[in-house]
């Protein structure tokens, strides 16, 4: 994107001025190099979102923004139901509540090294990943509905994990307002074999070591010590979320046309928050959030068992669990007035500031942990919400590196075996059922995650707490 077409509000804040159908301006948080690296489509998509009814303040793009569907990936927008605001199935995306959680092992890298291969095998064997994989769990229809209402809380009640995990999950592990009755039989059928599966693509389970600490007080509150090992899990609501996204997007495309809503892009299909369709989508989407939370909770349980088999006595406390494809009802102060808004984050992480009432007491002083996944073989980061983060972009920050190269181009450039061997030479063990999948996810196909988090920090969206380097990566 050409920066000269934007108004530079500050070093890390760029404005797309209102034009055409835009109701509010667009704001991109990034440094100049990141802006130059963004596809022109990002600017178009930010502007298109700004044209949706009831949008508040601005249409935002995070530093990792890239060309998505309707919304850019890395897009944030809030809508006011009292002002005709909408909820957009495209603004949440197909992988509803895709997110990251990080577990603390307390083990040092030196302790891990002698058993690294054994741990890689144990984790790979314990984690159903990739195309056609199935979980061990089969839910009856009533258990499916209980899961969709209860999320991680349901999973803990069934023995997957510990009650104290729930404090360390957004919404305390269970998204309120879920309506399993609004979830189609097809979506439930698609989930029947998929509980506790990782998925494929950019989803992973990664063993990492804490390579650097930036904020010692926050790191201590988060339980992060330099040289210790953590495990991060990146996945979402699996087939159920994909099917809900597919079905509601389709319904909203047709309904918007019938209602005379002019969509600049069909992928922005939406419905008024206060409409039967809007309410049905919200109920189903919240059920999908619970599915994702339950899924990550089940994966946590299998991960704990696998790690304990290799490193007996490891507790694996949950640091935190964030979702980065959601629409959530939150209160934000806009122009001095507290308003109840429907905040869409599409490839963006919530970053509540210190003292926010939704944070558990142990994390209140430090602010919300913001878990930023890198790509296989590159660093990941843990950030925290800042006192200013509540004022910028409705307490939102980036979510990952974002691709810089298409899958097609990546497979032309790299062979999966070569990627695995090169990473092994650097001490990173990759375990995946698909070498082509590995080639498509080659580290070089992603943007520099360090530039992304540096820009997020400079823009006061969140502050850096720790840097994580990969040790083992299980890919779908």
């Amino acid at each position: 994107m050409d920066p000269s077409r934007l108004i530079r509000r500050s070093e890390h804040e760029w404005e797309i001025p209102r034009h055409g159908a835009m109701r509010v301006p667009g704001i991109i948080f990034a440094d100049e190099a990141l802006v130059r690296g963004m596809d022109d489509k990002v600017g178009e998509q930010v502007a298109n979102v700004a044209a949706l009814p009831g949008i508040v303040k601005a249409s935002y793009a995070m530093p990792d923004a890239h060309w998505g569907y309707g919304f850019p990936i890395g897009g944030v927008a809030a809508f006011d139901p009292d002002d005709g605001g909408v909820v957009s199935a495209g603004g949440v995306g197909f992988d509803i509540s895709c997110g990251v959680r990080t577990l603390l092992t307390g083990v040092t890298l030196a302790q891990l090294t002698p058993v690294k291969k054994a741990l890689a095998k144990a984790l790979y064997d314990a984690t159903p990943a990739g195309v056609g994989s199935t979980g061990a769990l089969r839910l009856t229809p009533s258990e499916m509905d209980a899961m969709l209402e209860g999320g991680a809380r349901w999973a803990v009640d069934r023995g997957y994990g510990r009650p104290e995990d729930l404090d360390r999950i957004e919404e305390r592990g269970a998204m309120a307002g879920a309506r399993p009755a609004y979830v189609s039989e097809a979506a439930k059928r698609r989930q029947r074999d998929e509980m506790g599966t990782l998925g494929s693509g950019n989803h992973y389970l990664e063993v990492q070591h804490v390579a650097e600490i930036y904020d010692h007080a926050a790191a201590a509150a988060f339980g992060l010590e330099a040289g210790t090992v953590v495990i991060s899990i990146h996945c979402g609501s699996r087939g159920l979320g994909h099917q809900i996204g597919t079905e509601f997007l389709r319904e909203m495309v047709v309904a918007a046309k019938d209602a005379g809503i002019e969509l600049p892009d069909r992928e922005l299909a939406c419905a008024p928050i206060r409409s039967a369709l809007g309410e049905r989508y919200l109920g189903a989407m919240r059920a999908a959030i619970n599915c994702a939370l339950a899924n990550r909770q089940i994966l946590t349980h299998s991960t704990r068992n696998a790690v304990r088999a290799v490193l007996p006595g490891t507790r694996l406390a949950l640091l935190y669990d964030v979702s980065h494809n959601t629409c959530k009802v939150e209160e934000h102060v806009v122009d001095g007035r507290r308003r109840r808004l429907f905040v869409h984050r599409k490839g963006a992480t919530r970053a509540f500031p210190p003292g926010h009432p939704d944070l558990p007491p142990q994390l209140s002083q430090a602010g919300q942990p913001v878990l930023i996944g890198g790509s296989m073989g590159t660093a990941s980061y843990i950030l925290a919400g800042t006192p200013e983060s509540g004022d910028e972009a409705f307490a939102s920050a980036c979510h990952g590196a974002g691709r810089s190269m298409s899958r097609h181009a990546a497979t032309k450039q790299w062979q999966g075996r070569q990627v695995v061997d090169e990473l092994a030479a650097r001490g990173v063990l990759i375990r995946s059922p698909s070498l082509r999948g590995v080639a498509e996810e080659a580290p070089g196909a992603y943007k520099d995650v360090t530039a992304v988090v540096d820009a997020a920090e400079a823009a006061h969206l969140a502050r850096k707490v720790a840097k994580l380097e990969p040790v083992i990566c299980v890919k779908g």
Partner: protein
Amino acid sequence: MIWEHFAHGADIGVRGVGTTKGEAFEQAALALTAVLTDPDAVAAKTAVDIRSEAPDGELLLVDWLNALIYEMTTRKMIFGRFAVTITGDLLTATAWGEPVDRVRHHPAVEVKAATYTALSVAQRNDGTWVAQCVVDV
């Protein structure tokens, strides 16, 4: 009749070209399979019937590909041959395939959904049909 992929920032586009709209849809389905694996390596052992209805050709393409994705994920199958008939708003089709074999097919990535991005179903000046969209993986 050909299929091909086209680039999209994070994902991948599928495109089918044929002498009829139905053929273009068949080719687009082959391109969808090729996101996972080589379509020629898929044996046509089991037939699955699919029926879709949509108010326009573009929505019909998205519905067709999403119906295939649903059959693939719930049956744990992969399809290598397609026969599509389109009459007005109605699509009737048969997809032939086999269970996913992780050793033989080396499936690269799951497809989450067909999207409305770069979506187009159109007849070109030479009379051939093109059907394409981006799929989310």
